[in-house]
């Protein structure tokens, strides 16, 4: 079973009479498996938040469909398995921290006798015990973000959708957040994170998707996304004619104590270089697939915006 599935999901704003159409999500086909931590990346305006709003049924798709646990997102019941933390969270500020969690727990159907214990457990987990009796209006941004995270986890959902979850957290908070996510993963929960903080996504996510202008550009695990992009051949000695031939390609050659390392940034070049090495009878000591960082993958994927 998939936790999230979209089929040709599209959203266009302002279509209709006398209004210019602005597509924000275009023919999105995405699958998030149960139990994985999935990173959803893209520059500002890529359509990440719109996709999340479509998944939550807050906005209607122009075409296509979205499913949570193989049920249409319009079914309210499927929300029993869902926890959501919005970007720049705004909470009902007339509650005290504990009261707000109690209200949301009741909405989620947490039984009254289990509610107090569950609320206390989450307040402790998110270091909000001291602020539990404080009015939410007096919470700092970071505290509100923690409280928002707590409300998303109240009913121990199978799927968490987190939109920029660490935007207001300090480094300590981010570390704690990462640990909580890894704990959730160990328990088989699915987490869908939209974030700009690439290092954070890289450290916790099993798979990532990169979106730009509403289009899904790439999706896969980090090795999948970086494989075929950069390969290193470590060889024993390089004959001069081959050195010259390699100099005319994009391959980067580094010589070290009788060995040479040839770095091929893409798959086509890798094949060419490998052929050249074999033609010259050069012994390949080892071939290393160079894994790119998520940041490298991200910038290699997105088209930079036109310069003004």
């Amino acid at each position, binding site marked *: 079973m998939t936790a999230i599935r979209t089929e040709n999901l599209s959203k266009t704003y302002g279509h209709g009479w006398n209004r210019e159409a602005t597509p924000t999500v275009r023919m999105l086909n995405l699958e998030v498996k149960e139990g994985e931590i999935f990173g959803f990346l893209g520059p500002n305006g890529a359509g990440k938040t719109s996709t999340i709003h479509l998944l939550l*049924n*807050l906005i*209607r798709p122009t075409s296509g469909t979205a499913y949570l646990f193989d049920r249409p997102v319009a079914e309210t019941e499927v929300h029993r398995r*869902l926890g*959501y933390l*919005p970007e720049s969270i705004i909470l*009902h500020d007339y509650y005290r921290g504990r009261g707000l969690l109690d209200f*949301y727990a009741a909405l*989620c*159907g947490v039984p009254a006798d289990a509610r107090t214990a569950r609320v206390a457990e989450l307040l402790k987990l998110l270091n909000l015990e001291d602020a539990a009796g404080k009015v939410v209006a007096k919470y700092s941004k970071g505290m509100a973000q923690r409280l928002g995270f707590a409300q998303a986890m109240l009913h121990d959902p199978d799927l968490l959708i987190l939109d920029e979850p660490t935007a207001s957290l300090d480094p300590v908070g981010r570390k704690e957040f990462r640990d909580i996510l890894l704990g959730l993963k160990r328990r088989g929960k699915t987490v869908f994170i939209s974030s700009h903080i690439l290092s954070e996504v890289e450290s916790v996510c099993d798979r990532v998707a990169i979106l730009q202008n509403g289009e899904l550009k790439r999706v896969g695990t980090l090795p999948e996304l970086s494989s075929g992009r950069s390969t290193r051949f470590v060889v024993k000695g390089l004959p001069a004619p081959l050195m010259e031939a390699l100099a005319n390609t994009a391959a980067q050659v580094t010589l070290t104590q009788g060995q040479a390392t040839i770095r091929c940034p893409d798959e086509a070049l890798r094949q060419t270089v490998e052929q050249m090495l074999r033609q010259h009878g050069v012994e390949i000591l080892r071939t290393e697939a160079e894994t790119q960082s998520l940041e490298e993958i991200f910038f290699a994927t997105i088209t930079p915006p036109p310069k003004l």
Partner: protein
Amino acid sequence: MKTIFLIASDSIRALLHQRLLLGLMLASLALTIFFSITMSSVRKNITRTYNDDQMTNSSPFMGTNQMSEGDRRKFRESMESASTTFQAMFYQVASFGGSIVALFIFSTAVASEIRKGTIRLTLSKPVSRTQFLLGKYLGGVTVMAAFALLTSLAILIFAQTQNLELSPVIKWAPWLMFCRQLMLGSLAMLLSLFMHPIIASVLAFVAGNGLYSPPNPLYFILPSYKDFNVFFQVLQGSLLNARDVAWLSLYAADFIVIMLLLALWRFRTKELV
């Protein structure tokens, strides 16, 4: 049903934390008290003037404090008329204040949640849009019921302290005022799903003051608040009976249900970001 009550209780809590609403309620109460004091002094002046007239016209044989049967009746009728008009005007003022409060409550109930973005969290829980809207309406109804109760208590206390006898028309006033406010509220809530709450409130208020009556077909399309206004009934000298009140209640219920159904239709398809 439990979810609707939870949303309603949250809505009441939110309303009680709205400074502007509390300000409006206090202003409405202050206006009512001010009006009551003014009317009370007017009533005393009428009594004093009548007594002065008696003094001037009194016969030396009958004594200064003696009144003929006809004079007594005239005085009693004049006092009853002043009293009923006073009570009706009391409700006119209270009803106007209540209408402003109702428009504020219902036009912002859903719209403010959408504007602030808090609706996104609530609807990410297993809460349907229908439950959300009905919960919000129920919360507003509860606050308005409390307000109507307070106003009724106010007139009872005032009538008691001023030795006023409540007229038969007046006894229906709180209920009719409550019905009128719920009608206004349901229309304001519907309109607020299409436009800014302030514009929605103004339109809802204006739409119902067309003074249409049957058989004018507009009466059945546009809301008509006229018959819910006790002041008009008193001025026209028409006394409301239980049948009239039942008919008006039915009209209000019918109107509210239609408005809520339209609001639900709109809300279910509305983009909530």
